[in-house]
């Protein structure tokens, strides 16, 4: 199994790591039991992604896809952002090993959840459709609500 140079570049030098403190939208997906979890925070202005940051616990591919998706989404309209496919993410990274294709879902799902979070908070209809959000049972030390991204 080999990662492309671009995957390794994004893994070694991930772009846009961190948390936007007063984020407009927050998405957290994945599950530590499965080994990876990702959180995306968005700053949104006029239905455009003005700023985007991520945090990821996961393998090389999980970190690289998180990083690249923040680069791809920055400046995009919300509609375009939720339309980013896992295939596009993988292509943007010059491919992913077959066993790692699922990681690119994590990144696009995180983005979708964050966008919908923003929309729902503002009383609007979600546009991204169903995605698997973070498993609420993963954190033994937290209150139930702590990691419900809708309320974080």
């Amino acid at each position, binding site marked *: 199994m080999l990662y492309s140079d671009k995957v390794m570049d994004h893994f070694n030098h991930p772009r846009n790591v961190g948390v936007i403190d007063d984020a407009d939208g927050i998405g957290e997906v994945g599950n530590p039991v499965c080994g990876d979890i990702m959180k995306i925070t968005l700053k949104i202005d006029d239905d455009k992604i003005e700023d985007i940051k991520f945090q*990821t616990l996961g*393998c090389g591919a999980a970190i690289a896809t998180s990083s690249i998706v923040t680069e791809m989404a920055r400046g995009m309209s919300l509609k375009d952002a939720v339309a980013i496919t896992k295939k596009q993410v993988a292509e943007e990274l010059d491919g992913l090993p077959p066993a790692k294709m699922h990681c690119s879902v994590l990144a696009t799902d995180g983005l979708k959840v964050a966008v919908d979070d923003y929309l729902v908070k503002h009383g609007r209809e979600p546009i991204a459709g169903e995605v698997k959000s973070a498993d609420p049972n993963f954190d033994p030390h937290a209150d139930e609500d702590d990691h419900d991204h809708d309320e974080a």
Partner: protein
Amino acid sequence: MDTPRRIYFDYAATTPVDQRVMDAMMPYFMEDYGNANSLYALGRDAYRALEDARERFAKGIGATHPSEITFTGCGTESDNAALLGITARKSPKGGHVIVSKFEHHAVLEPAHLLEKRGYEVTYLGPREDGIIHVEDMVVALRDDTVLVSIMHGNNEIGTIQPIKELAAAAHERGALFHTDGAQTLGKIPFDVAELGVDAASFSGHKIYGPKGVGALYLKRGTPFEPQILGGGQESKKRSGTQNVPGIVGFAKALELMLEDQAEESLRLAALREKLTNAVIERLENTEQSTTVDPAHRMPNIASLLIKGVEGEAMLLQLDNLGIAVSTGSACSSGSLEPSHVLLSIGCPPEIAHGSLRVSMGRFTTEADVDYFLEVLPPIVERLRSMSPVYDRMFGSSAR
């Protein structure tokens, strides 16, 4: 830094061929290249080299007779052959088999196949200490138990099973006993007579021998149905033109291991202790995967749980700095489940994903360990800082 440092800490995965092994093999590639089954001089020379290697290998594991050694293509083939070959001859219509839950896949997969073929298989769990306990096996044994297969040293967590006691208890109920010795051969005492096993598997490339050669010990009289069929080589137990250089190299490699086994195991155990203790001291939320005492651990394997990081990411970061380690993370293998070994000793999956196996060997120095101890903490801290859940999951618990 001109040449980047390159430190190999994955001796449990594979080893470089030792120069002396290479020297022993060399004549058999281009000069004494004969087929060991041919009658002319070149064939007889190969035959002699082969049988000499068999004799030395047999001696090295305490076998009574060289014919108890069958050379194979790899450790996996030996494990497969032991499970499938013994059951097929001893009890072709089915029966009960016991394997431990943390066997290598080379044992677990044939066990699954046996289930498909109508055998009943008990997957015996280790206790939290990472050891298969005799009492637990005794409970699992039945009158129709044909074969028990429990590995000697576990390749991930490095625990050593009480094979002598396990084999004796299995025999008491009329079951045969196989052990996977791929990890322990040459590293700690492995004597088939002392252990009392009926069968044992070994792999060349784990002990500075070549890849592509394995061995299967079958005590005289052990029922066995050959699994690779053809020209009847290896006393009909394993067909195929013998890999003479590989076999000669394997025997040489074993002899070299035995030459300084006692000192080397002390040296490595000290390095392991130093490394383990320092990592735990320097990094919060870090522990050994089992707390069993050092007497029950292989000298060369340190198995660490670095909580709140994912193993593959850690591995790749260490690799950037020239350090080769291994992890039981699911993501490193492309499967969804993390290491079945760690799960079997009760390690929760979210912790198992952050496991780190540091395995040492002949060319490991204290300087290597020091370098590792220098570079690991910043890597772990950086990855933890990138995690959306580290503080939530572990932030308060260990301070």
